[in-house]
């Protein structure tokens, strides 16, 4: 169902960060912040936890590596041990490069995929914009209003104090 949001736009990232900090200090819950570029210090201000993507990378990498090494051994030692230049069937060192490449490939693709899934980015999915310019030159803070959530007036003032260039209400879903 559509819900209502209070959206404040900013021109200055620093102002944005301060505003976010101030608002959270007052116990308001930030729905999200929108920006044309990553804004430093916002993570702390919004209190976002460190991403868990690195674990995906680690697991995928380990799996890919293991799988590759296993396959190489299977092929070269068990399935058909051919005499290649008199070298031992298990020429471990020779298996390293490919194992490494596959590790990187597996880890990389898995991480990217995980990111897209988590961020809900798919081809053809319609963007939920807090306002056109957020991908161009403005920054925006969105507060989601639920019955008895907070006092709009207070929120407005707070934002304006912290240099919001504009405040709108919007009904729809972000």
């Amino acid at each position, binding site marked *: 169902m559509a819900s*209502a949001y209070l959206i404040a*736009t900013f*021109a*200055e*990232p*620093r102002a944005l960060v301060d505003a976010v900090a101030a608002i959270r200090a007052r116990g308001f819950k930030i729905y*999200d*912040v*929108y*920006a*044309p*570029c*990553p*804004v430093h210090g*916002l*993570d702390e201000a919004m209190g*976002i936890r460190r*991403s868990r*993507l690195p674990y995906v990378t680690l697991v995928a990498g380990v799996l890919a590596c293991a799988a590759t090494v296993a*396959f190489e051994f299977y*092929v*070269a030692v068990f*399935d058909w041990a051919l005499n*290649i230049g008199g*070298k031992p069937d298990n020429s471990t060192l*020779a*298996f390293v*490069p*490919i194992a*490494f*490449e*596959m590790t*990187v*490939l597996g*880890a*990389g*693709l898995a*991480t*990217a995929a995980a*990111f*897209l899934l988590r*961020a809900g*980015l*798919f081809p053809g*999915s*319609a*963007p939920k*914009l807090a*306002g056109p*310019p*957020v*991908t*161009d*030159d*403005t*920054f925006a803070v969105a507060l989601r209003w639920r019955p008895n959530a907070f006092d*709009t*007036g207070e929120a407005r003032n707070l934002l304006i104090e912290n240099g919001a*260039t*504009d405040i709108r209400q919007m009904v729809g879903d972000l």
Partner: protein
Amino acid sequence: MIRFEPRADRSLRLQPRPPIVGNPALGRITDDVARPLDARPGLGWCACFAAAATALSIGVACVAYEIATGIGVWGLNRTVGWAFDITNFVFWVGIGHAGTLISAILLLFRQRWRTSINRSAEAMTIFAVVCAALFPLIHMGRPWLAFWVFPYPNSRGSLWVNFRSPLLWDVFAINTYMTISLVFWYIGMIPDFATLRDRASAGLRKTIYSIASLGWNGSHRTWSRYETLNVILAGLATPLVISVHSIVSMDFATSILPGWHTTIFPPYFVAGAVYSGFGMVTTLLILTRSLMHLEAYITHRNLDAMAKVMLLTGSMVGLAYGTEFYVAWISGNMYEQATFIGRATGPYAWCFWTMVACNALAPQVLWSKRIRASVPALFVFSILVNVGMWLERFVIIVTSLHRSYLPSSWVMYRPTLIEVGTLVGSFGLFFSCFLLFIRLLPMIAMWEVKGAASHAGGTHG
């Protein structure tokens, strides 16, 4: 306790309402980068593209003829089994490396000057790797069977592939490198696609951009994951780029051929790759900045930094040359010694000395700030780098092959027009791709530049 009533904000509207004002600095960045995409192509661009397309078609013709007739249309023979083909392969792979280096390694080192050039550098990487991947394919006697290098289940009674062969390592290295670079590149462009989407008025372009931008809405939660992802990909790409050229160098290092069988090849090749890559980046950026009027973004600071990298890597390459000779001398291996004496004095000596001049001596002029500051000088130099590095691969491959162990098999190698045409074609392919890229895609990472700008101190980014 207050209830939220819509009426309340109707009352708001009675007050004078300030217009939405964005950050002018950021807005300008968007305009500057996006403008060329909307504008009609300039005369310079058209001229360049025409040239590139011609070169490309020459290449296509040559390759078609070669595949239809046989590798015999090249100048190879019973002793020299590789020459132009693998030279070009190694050359292009090397070119690719600078892109990854700029986008990944410098990202890890938080070098902010990279932001304006990394996008085009990455693009260059991908196009270079495409050119590179072409050659192992067409150099095969039976390219239509190239898929045999992949270990796929088959009806041949568990006949797979030979994991001991450096060529197979190449297959995996190049493919991985290609894929990861593509992913990195595309991920990097998603926010900019979103920007373009939101600028574009409804129409084909808008649809394309909205599909490409995967519904990006600049949410900061995504931004924060996004930055993590970039760092991870950078972290993966860095060892990858080093591994790739090390593996390419192992094609030679693991052989028993005097002049190839050398343990210093991996580092030596990586240094050479970065050197040549930066050479090519410099060439391209100097061209683009004049073609697309981006002097404000591709600044002297960028060029200077790249010149310094070239000075460093060029000197490393020079050192490697010296080391090779020293090792040959100290090894007491007559075959090794003969090969290196042959390089410096044999029939291909002129290639060798040109290579030394371009790769080891020329960079030394970059010690001078004045030269680093002069765009024309850098342009000329960057061309020299490309020539020199191409010759380096040629010297390594051909001089080692044409006179190896048994003098009875010593021969000369002379390239045919077809080979030259193929080389020209690969350049055509590369530049066609690049020119299309700067026309159709944001060639400067807007979000990164904006990030840098806003971070560097708000409006005066």
